[in-house]
């Protein structure tokens, strides 16, 4: 408990991180309760197409007369959902790879790291595009595609942490009393190896949201759901006459990603105070 309160104290000192946390809180709240408080179907034609923001439509309507505010609120759900799920999946896979490679070393390390490097070499967005296009766009395939291209960096980091920890006295002690490997890995080393991984994973949510927006901009998003990238793709056709239509969802992506990055950096400073950059 005391650990958490010092953590909070350190986090609070970083003004950018606090601003990021507040902003992110607002976006999360909009995603959770927004569609309930403003129950307009984002696919419904509710008025004349391409209306600028006004009293009846706070953010205007799109090319098909759909309510942009409804799209923004529902899009927040998709962005955050896919961002969090993809980075969770990437973290689990990456930590598993990194932990095994770092703990056992030798040929296990060689094999796992060759696989990791292989995935680092493939242009990641291209691979994501190929995966989504082949398995048909849906929340599941988009999430999986983003996870597939994101896990290698976690694997490298986790491996480094495990290598640093495995020679420590407490690990030797665990071995001496005959503790099984899985227990050492999961219960003893993991808690010590996790802080830097948490930072990278939280920053990865931001990258995942950017990737998702790029995919759905290209038309590779779930066709049954409105997302911010999709809204930009639709609005692009009327860029000349109604630039605000693509400006609004893009600004939402920017604000959300910026907030996550600020929080991630705040976490980094709070969790690893010694590594703090000047």
């Amino acid at each position, binding site marked *: 408990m005391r650990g958490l309160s010092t953590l909070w104290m350190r986090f609070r000192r970083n003004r950018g991180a606090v601003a990021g946390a507040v902003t992110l809180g607002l976006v999360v709240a909009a995603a959770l309760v927004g569609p309930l408080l403003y129950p307009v179907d984002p696919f419904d034609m509710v008025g004349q197409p391409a209306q600028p923001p006004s009293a009846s439509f706070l953010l205007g309507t799109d090319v098909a007369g759909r309510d942009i505010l409804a799209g923004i609120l529902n899009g927040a759900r998709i962005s955050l959902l896919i961002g969090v799920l993809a980075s969770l999946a990437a973290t689990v896979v990456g930590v598993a790879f990194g932990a095994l490679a770092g703990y056992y070393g030798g040929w296990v390390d060689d094999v796992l790291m060759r696989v990791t490097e*292989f995935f*680092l*070499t*493939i*242009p*990641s*967005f*291209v691979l*994501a*595009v*190929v*995966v989504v*296009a*082949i*398995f*048909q766009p849906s929340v599941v395939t988009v999430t999986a595609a983003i996870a597939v291209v994101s896990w290698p960096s976690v694997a490298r980091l986790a491996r480094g942490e495990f290598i640093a920890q495995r020679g420590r006295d407490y690990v030797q002690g665990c071995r001496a009393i005959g503790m099984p490997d899985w227990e050492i890995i999961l219960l003893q080393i993991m808690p010590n190896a996790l802080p830097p991984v948490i930072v990278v994973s939280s920053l990865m949510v*931001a990258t995942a949201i*950017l990737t998702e*927006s*790029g995919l759905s*901009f*290209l038309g590779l998003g779930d066709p049954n759901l409105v997302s911010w*990238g999709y809204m*930009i793709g639709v609005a*692009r056709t009327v*860029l*000349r006459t109604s*630039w605000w239509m*693509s*400006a609004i969802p*893009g600004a939402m*992506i*920017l*604000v959300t*990603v*910026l907030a996550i*990055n*600020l929080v991630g950096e705040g976490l980094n400073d709070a969790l690893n105070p010694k590594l703090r*950059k*000047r």
Partner: protein
Amino acid sequence: MRQASLLFLVRRLLQIVPVVLAIVALNFFLLRMAPGDVADILAGQMGHATAEFTQQLRQEFGLDRPLYQQFFIYMGKLLTFDLGVSHLQQTPVIVLILDRLPATLILMLTSVVLAVALGVVLGVAAARREGTIADSLISVLALVVYATPAFWLGLMLIVLFSIKLDILPSGGMIQIGAGLKGAAYALDVAWHLILPAATLALFYVAIYTRLMRASMLEVYGLDFIVTARAKGLSETAIAWTHALRNALLPVVTLAGVQFGHLLGGSILVETVFGWPGLGRLVFDALLQRDLNLLLGILFVSSAVVVSANLVVDLIYGLLDPRIVHK
């Protein structure tokens, strides 16, 4: 020493081959998992196709053979640099790729140079003024740009520079119908290149700026900088001749890694600006299930990326002679 470098080069070149082959294999099997093939698409385009006709097409293209046989036939051809034929466009894949490759390479190289140059200048400027308003301003800008989706940034740049100010073209690579030649043509391409290259580069400018700033500050803490100051060298000379060279390594590493990512970014940027490059071709090939073309592009692009990483390794040795390739 020279011999060691040569050996290193040969060994790295030999390492490239299995990596590229593995990427091709992964792509090959991944793409075959897709429902529907080029025979379906072609039959669909002709309208009145029967099942027999579709089957006949498959036979003609060798798509009726077992997968492993198709794979070995493809790999066998690849070893002689035969990338096959795009069945949809009835053109050898290599012709289609070579037609688009220059446009993408111009875009990517311009972006890399722009990103590294701007990132280094801004990063050094921020580090030299650590803690001042200029430093904070640069850092905040970098943070904002780093959070901006590149394709959206491109659209907003079009709004500003093409629609509102009307000073730059909003898309394409040349002025259509102008029929320019020689220097005028090159100038026209450069004119059209400004917005897409800036769009693709800005995200990386943000990354390099942050990295360069951190790296410079670290070098500033080292003894040889203190010595240089004690010798009475000007701060400008210290920054640009002493510190820069040492602080540049992480930026070079990252530039090599990100060359591959630029290709992904160029799919988006080429879409936004109608730039006639490989990125656009990948996307079209994917939608049309033109697998031979797609495999060919992925092969060429991974070869480019892996080679870029090799070049980075070599630049490394130039920047820091202490790095001996073993």
